[in-house]
């Protein structure tokens, strides 16, 4: 599991990133670090305990990579191919996904809360025990995915497809659902409202 070490620069509240004692803001040779990271990500298939907070991934081909216990807090994913990837015990909160392909990915016990997501395709994924609370999603497709025990609470979902999904114990509480398609999904097994004992 990752260890969040504070950035070495005094007064900075961010975390040191992979292979460095400082955060992305205080990297003196950012381009060099960035290309080393890109090379590292492309050279291996399995990664564990990586800290890549606030990193921007643009037009990367990371298909089939496996990430275990990694932190990507505040990371930006743009036009990145993540098909067939596996994320276990990872934290990707408060970032953004734009024009990414995440088809047939496996997500187990991850936190992806507070993200913005536009035009992303998650078709055929296993998304188990994943926290998407506060998600602002637009034009995304989760069709044919298993969303067992995942949460989409307190967010806004616009033009999102959930066709033929497993929604058992999936929560959409306090979420604004605009033009959502739940066709062929076990919608009745999802939780759409807070428990009745609420005031």
């Amino acid at each position, binding site marked *: *599991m990752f*260890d*969040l070490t504070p950035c070495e620069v005094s007064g900075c509240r961010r*975390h040191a990133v992979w292979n460095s004692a400082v955060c992305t803001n205080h990297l003196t040779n950012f381009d060099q670090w960035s290309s080393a990271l890109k090379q590292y990500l492309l050279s291996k298939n399995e990664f564990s305990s990586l800290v890549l907070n606030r990193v921007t991934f643009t037009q990367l081909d990371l298909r089939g990579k496996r990430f275990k*216990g990694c932190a990507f*807090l505040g990371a930006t994913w743009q036009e990145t191919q993540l098909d067939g990837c596996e994320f276990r*015990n990872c*934290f990707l*909160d*408060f970032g953004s996904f734009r024009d990414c392909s995440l088809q047939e990915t496996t997500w187990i*016990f*991850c*936190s992806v*809360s*507070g993200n913005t997501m536009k035009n992303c395709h998650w078709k055929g994924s296993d998304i188990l*025990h*994943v*926290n998407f*609370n*506060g998600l602002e999603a637009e034009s995304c497709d989760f069709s044919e995915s298993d969303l067992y*025990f*995942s*949460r989409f*609470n*307190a967010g806004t979902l616009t033009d999102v497809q959930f066709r033929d999904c497993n929604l058992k*114990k999936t*929560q959409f*509480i*306090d979420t604004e659902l605009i033009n959502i398609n739940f066709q062929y999904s076990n919608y009745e097994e999802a939780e759409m409202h*807070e*428990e009745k*004992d*609420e*005031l």
Partner: protein
Amino acid sequence: MKFYFHYSAENFTNTYILGPDNGGDAILIDPGVLDVPLLDLIEQNNYYIRWVLITRCQSHHIRGLQTLKRIYDAQIYSRQAVVQEFSCQVVKPGTRLQLNDMSVDVFCFSELSHDAAVYKVGSWLFCGDLISAGRPGTTSSPYAKVILSQALEKRFFQGHEDTLIFPGEGPPTLMRSEKLFNTARYLAKRTPHVPLFPENPEEWEP
């Protein structure tokens, strides 16, 4: 330190294991079940479960305890002196446990239950039933939910934003996420603090 999550489909609860990178004495949090996959996980990592932390003494958190105790001579930490037939070391608010090189701080929330304990290991918080991602813990009545929400507001949501939270049920979460999206926050804010008994008896309204 290594971290493992195990889900019990029988109880819908989470069990966690914390141990050193190269095997050895490990902590198990909430033995809701001790099935073959969990045992494999422990053995494949060369762990010996030396300590068991219980967040709440309800069956879905302790059902695997009897099997576990047959295999491992583990010290149990709990809010109760006896769990099932096993004697435990009672933890109190502010207790700090030193388990080899791991420091564990204990917090208690009697607003949820008399036996509810929360364990903090570094920046990881194992909160049991206290909250689940985006929601406060389940209570017996709306009144109890307000009381719990107010306690969370005062003593839980003040935690550091980067704290990683591992609930007894459901996915993991981040303190920052809970500060923004947990429904307990709305409940605590829109409900004025009402003392159980008015401070001035003349304020009583029959």
